[in-house]
């Protein structure tokens, strides 16, 4: 009982907590819920939602969306598990490099990935989409599962082996069930990412293969069929909430499990059949490199020089350099915003958990929603609602960072929350007893202990914002286009120079991403999800 008692605390006073919660929740309400609801209402008011949902075409779309997402999730899980083993259970040299390599795809702009796969598989098609989406998400599976696997007590496996279980049998009957929560949580997130993936499908699917996400875009932008788009958005929203709920349940089980087991010294030199798994993992890593390398090798000197210009016959309204400048500025603003909001949200969530508030899972899931709702829906919603806000946001340079922050904040929360939750409450109480007030406790205990993960969150947020395409493509005006938007425009226009320039721009984004990921790896913290 004493243990249970020790977890309880008053923490921040209710009033301070409410004030703190109001900021991220208010942001979520104004810049996410309102625009989404507005666009849904607009569609519903026009009527015909049920008619749209009744057509066979819609269900073919749903079928393809689910099928490609399920396929990509399966591929990502199968490819991610050997890599997770490599990271968690072996002590081979060069693991740091592997960590960097698998993370690069995850933070690459979707347009860049689409372009890379189009270069590799010119035929395109469903398989190209499945592979490209899986390529994105191997890191999510590998990192999430490895995170749990390192903390898993190896002695349970040793006991099974001593009781006569073979190595494969031990894996399926002891290790796999223990890893199930992490695999489940990762698979839910990956499924979500794949089901709402936009840039990849847009580039690889062309006019033939469409998912709910690209169809919403098509109907909103080109057909102006708002009721159809609203119907599809509702459908997508339902699926997203379901997937997030599954993920939240799996996550809770995993975070409890982590508290029970201490970190064990579980990395060893592989032996026997384990080398086969290592070889598999290395093959996955090599395959992950193929699209990246093919992009980089296609960028020519001519392409790099063209970055200073406007593309073939003025395809762009701004020069490549201006696009880079726009990208960097928007990503910086978005990161600052997302880190601030994400930290506040994490503090609120930690305090809620500590005080055993029942709806904490609901709040947690609410903060995750922007990850799964169509960026197109959000972007178009902005165009409706922002005019009603004071100030001229629609033409403000803050518009793009606001939308990007919406996508980055959930990521910041997922990185910060496990770290903050892992800090023993009694450490804060010890500081309080020594004379530190609530804010001082936060400054003296939480900030130093979660500081490194804050840096990690900021760096990841930065590259994700840099590569954000869906909402940005909708909100950026021609003169505020970011690099991914410029790339998409370049490849949609004819002209070899445009292709060259697009490849050079992609390579530039890859280089920035690699640099940031490498820095993040230096300050890596052991808890956290990505």
């Amino acid at each position, binding site marked *: 009982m004493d243990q249970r*008692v020790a977890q309880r605390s008053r923490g921040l006073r209710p009033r301070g907590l409410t004030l703190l919660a109001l900021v991220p929740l208010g942001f979520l309400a104004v810049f996410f819920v309102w625009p989404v609801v507005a666009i849904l209402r607009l569609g519903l008011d026009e009527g015909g939602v049920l008619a749209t949902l009744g057509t066979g075409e819609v269900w073919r779309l749903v079928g393809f969306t689910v099928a490609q997402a399920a396929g990509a999730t399966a591929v990502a899980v199968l490819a991610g598990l050997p890599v997770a083993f490599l990271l968690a259970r072996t002590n081979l040299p060069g693991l740091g490099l592997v960590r960097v390599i698998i993370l690069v795809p995850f933070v690459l702009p979707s347009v860049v990935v689409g372009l890379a796969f189009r270069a590799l598989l010119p035929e395109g098609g469903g398989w190209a989409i499945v592979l490209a989406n899986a390529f994105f998400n191997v890191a999510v599976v590998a990192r999430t599962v490895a995170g749990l696997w390192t903390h898993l007590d190896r002695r349970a496996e040793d006991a099974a082996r001593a009781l006569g279980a073979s190595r494969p049998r031990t894996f399926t009957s002891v290790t796999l069930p223990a890893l199930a929560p992490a695999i489940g949580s990762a698979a839910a997130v990956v499924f979500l990412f794949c089901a709402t993936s936009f840039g990849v499908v847009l580039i690889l699917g062309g006019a033939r293969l469409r998912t709910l996400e690209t169809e919403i875009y098509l109907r909103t932008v080109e057909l102006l069929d708002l009721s159809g788009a609203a119907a599809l958005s509702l459908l997508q929203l339902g699926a997203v909430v379901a997937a997030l709920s599954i993920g939240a349940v799996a996550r809770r089980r995993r975070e409890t499990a982590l508290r029970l087991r201490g970190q064990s010294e579980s990395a060893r030199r592989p032996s026997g059949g384990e080398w086969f798994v290592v070889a598999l993992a290395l093959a996955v890593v090599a395959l992950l490199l193929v699209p990246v390398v093919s992009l980089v090798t296609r960028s020519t000197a001519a392409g790099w020089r063209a970055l200073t210009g406007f593309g073939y016959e003025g395809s762009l309204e701004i020069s490549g350099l201006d696009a880079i400048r726009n990208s960097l500025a928007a990503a910086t603003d978005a990161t600052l915003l997302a880190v601030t909001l994400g930290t506040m949200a994490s503090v609120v969530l930690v305090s809620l958990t500590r005080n055993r508030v029942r709806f904490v899972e609901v709040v947690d899931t609410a903060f995750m929603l922007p990850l799964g709702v169509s960026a197109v829906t959000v972007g178009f919603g902005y165009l409706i609602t922002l005019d009603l806000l004071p100030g001229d946001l629609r033409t403000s340079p803050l518009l793009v960072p606001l939308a990007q922050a919406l996508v980055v904040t959930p990521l910041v929360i997922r990185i910060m929350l496990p770290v903050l939750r892992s800090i023993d409450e009694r450490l804060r*109480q010890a500081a*309080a*007893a*020594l*004379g*530190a007030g609530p804010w001082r406790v936060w400054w003296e205990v939480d900030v130093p202990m979660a500081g490194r993960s804050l840096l990690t969150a900021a760096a990841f947020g930065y590259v994700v914002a840099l590569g954000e395409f869906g909402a940005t493509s909708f909100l950026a005006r021609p003169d505020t286009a970011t690099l991914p938007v410029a790339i998409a425009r370049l490849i949609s226009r004819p002209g070899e120079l445009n292709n060259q320039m697009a490849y050079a721009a992609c390579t530039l984004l890859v280089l920035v991403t690699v640099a940031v990921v490498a820095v993040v790896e230096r300050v890596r913290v052991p808890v956290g999800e990505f």
Partner: protein
Amino acid sequence: MLAVSGLTVRYGPLTAVSEVDVEVADGEVLALLGPSGCGKSTLLRAVAGLEPPVAGTVRWDEKDLADVPVHRRGFGLVFQDGQLFPHRDVAGNVAFGLRMRHVPAEDRRTRVAELLELVGLAGYERRKVTELSGGEQQRVALARALAPRPRLLLLDEPLSALDRALREQLAMDLAGVLRVAGATALVVTHDHDEAFTLADRVAVMRAGRIVQTGPPDEVWRRPADEDTARFLGCGLFLPAVVHDGVATCELGSVSLPWAPPGDVTLGLRPSALRLAADGIAGKLIRSVHRRDHVRLQVRLDETDQVVDAVAGIAETPGDRVHLTLDPTGLAVLP
């Protein structure tokens, strides 16, 4: 002086602490002794300001502390497992409370050195706390709590996480440190040896209530009731009559000068029956080595009762043995 009166703490439907009255005088060390789950840690946390009471008051020198938050109470707190700040070195941990009170850097350094000297860790300033052993971590935690000269020191099972030999050593050291520092302290423990080593006065707690308070000797010799006696190691209870400082029961007579005259109940700890050349006869069932004695189980001829006893050396089960009463293992209940 700490004065707790009528204090009640509830967790939902569970009443963890129920109408507790307890006082700790300046310079006194009071041990709250009780089995786990009896509410003693909750009481300590309520005194610290970490648990809001539903009724009752916590006062210091007549001032009610209800509206004083944890960090303004000026009470030091030591947890079972140290809870040192992992991102600070030993000196950084010990100086933490001094920094919170804006003590100048030079004075902080002196005080830290002084405290580390006191807990036997002189020169440890720059060591990482994560590299210290469990015992060293507890010493640092103690130094950290003592550094700002708290009005009251609250120790929550301070030695329970350590192994036995270390625990006994550290209990002696801790008793010494508390005396030297002249600290007023409230120690929570489930271990009576620890309580009796550290405390001037012991309060025995059970099911959220304090059932007995008194000096260690008195609590040990004259537990308030059978449950308390059982918690303090008595396994056998026998009716007895005390006359002229001699208690007589079915197992014989023994001199107990401190026992009140009249009808009483004797509580026998294993050490109350000792192997002897003659006395009560019985058959040895089991003999187990303990650290500094041998624990015996004997079936008495006369009553067919199985009793615990102690001996200096091991005997062979099945042997006939004789036991005598030893006053040091006896408790007298009303």
